């Protein structure tokens, strides 16, 4: 399993063509208390950069974009009842959706963990 990161502060963990997507610990820290999450339904087709999910904190609403293209296979139902999972475990239980990738070469444009750490250190 390899974990990639985007400049929009999403993480995507990939195993062959299956991937899990969420937002990073840095992102949840910036958002603050998450009170609502809307995840995409299974079978939703997403192109890289499409609006995939909505995350709302007390302060503001933010879109979560599809880091790569693919088809949604599952949205995290646990976030409906407990959106605060995004704050307590953003890179684990607080995942947003799973998808089947259409073009794994799109992953090459993303950052690895070290590159992402450097990226947020400069923000």
């Amino acid at each position, binding site marked *: 399993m390899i974990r990639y990161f985007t400049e929009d502060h999403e993480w995507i963990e990939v195993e062959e063509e299956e991937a899990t997507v969420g937002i990073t610990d840095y992102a949840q820290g910036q958002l*603050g*208390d998450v*009170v*609502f999450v*809307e995840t995409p339904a299974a079978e939703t087709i997403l192109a890289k950069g499409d609006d995939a999910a*909505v995350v*709302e*904190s*007390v*302060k*503001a*609403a933010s879109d979560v974009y599809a880091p790569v293209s693919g088809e949604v296979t599952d949205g995290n139902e646990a976030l409906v009842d407990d*959106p605060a999972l995004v704050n307590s475990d953003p890179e684990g239980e607080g995942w947003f959706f799973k998808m089947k990738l259409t073009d794994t070469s799109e992953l090459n444009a993303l950052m690895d963990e070290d590159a992402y750490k450097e990226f947020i250190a400069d923000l």
Partner: protein
Amino acid sequence: MGDIKLHLDQWHQDLGGRMVSFAGYSMPVQYDGVMAEHLWTRENAGLFDVSHMGQLIFSSDDSSIDIGIELEKLLPANIIKLGVNRLRYSMLLAQDGGILDDLMVTRREHDFYMVVNGAVKHEDMAYIRENIDDRITLNYMEDHYLLALQGPKAGDVMKHLIPETDMLYFMQAGHYNWDGIDLWISRSGYTGEDGFEISVHNDDAQKLADALIAYEEVKPIGLGARDSLRLEAGLPLYGHDLTPEIMPFAANLSFAVPKRRREEAGFIGDDPILKQFADGPSDLRVGLAIEGRQPVREGAIIVDDQGQQIGAITSGGFSPTLQRPIAMGYVPMHLTEQGTGIIIQQRGKNIAAKVTAMPFVPNGYRRPPRAA
């Protein structure tokens, strides 16, 4: 053009404040997190830096001039009957009746003290100078800080610091001395809680702020929680719920244009405002309880069954106290009854809501005891 740094900028940052740009100032939006700070203020006491707001003094060397009478030409409030050391909510109005700002005005022994919103304070001052008798001097207290201590434990903290403040009730104010420092303290605020707003010279602000947060009941609170607290209290925010396109009756602020002023008129914007009062406004600011968990935000629209826009959300968010989304918005008069169902459209999605009474959360003002 950078933002103006508050006198306590470093103090906020040392306490973990995350600074953001607001009203031309760099202000702390949060320290521990909006939710925790909000709930802390509802249960204990929060210290807010509101020094971006404009503190103004109206005075005159000419003893023949009555500043109260002159202010009534500018404001729709009952200023003549306002007692010494009493304050009142009012609005600055345009000739066409639109709201230019909302404010608090206090009659003091020798002058009037006014607090206006930070984002429009310079425009306010220019407008006031243009429209008030030249024999009145308007001073902008740029060298003064404004701190707000708000919450059910604010009274006990302030009483411990300055015992004489225990005499104050909601919308009363006075001059106090603490440890050699002059303070102007009002029992007022914008959170719906009991509390105080304290005007202090910039040079003494940190000493006072340190003394207040030394109490275990007091934590510093950022702008984020200030916004969610005032929303729960049903209080409109200028630039959002109130704008130059809105007149006081539509804004549901009829209490701020009392009977005598309606009868006698004689204030800027009186004709259009009294016409709106006579005819009834076409739209009204109402509170909205949102179904589901997704907050609606300013800018979302209110639609009819055909999807046509009939209103707009002007403030909205998640209520930390109620643990559900709440909002304020303008709806046509026939939809203002409590319990009326409406449809809100946000990013292409329909969200159901019901018109509801405000405040959303009961207020905790310390009112004077009723006479027996």
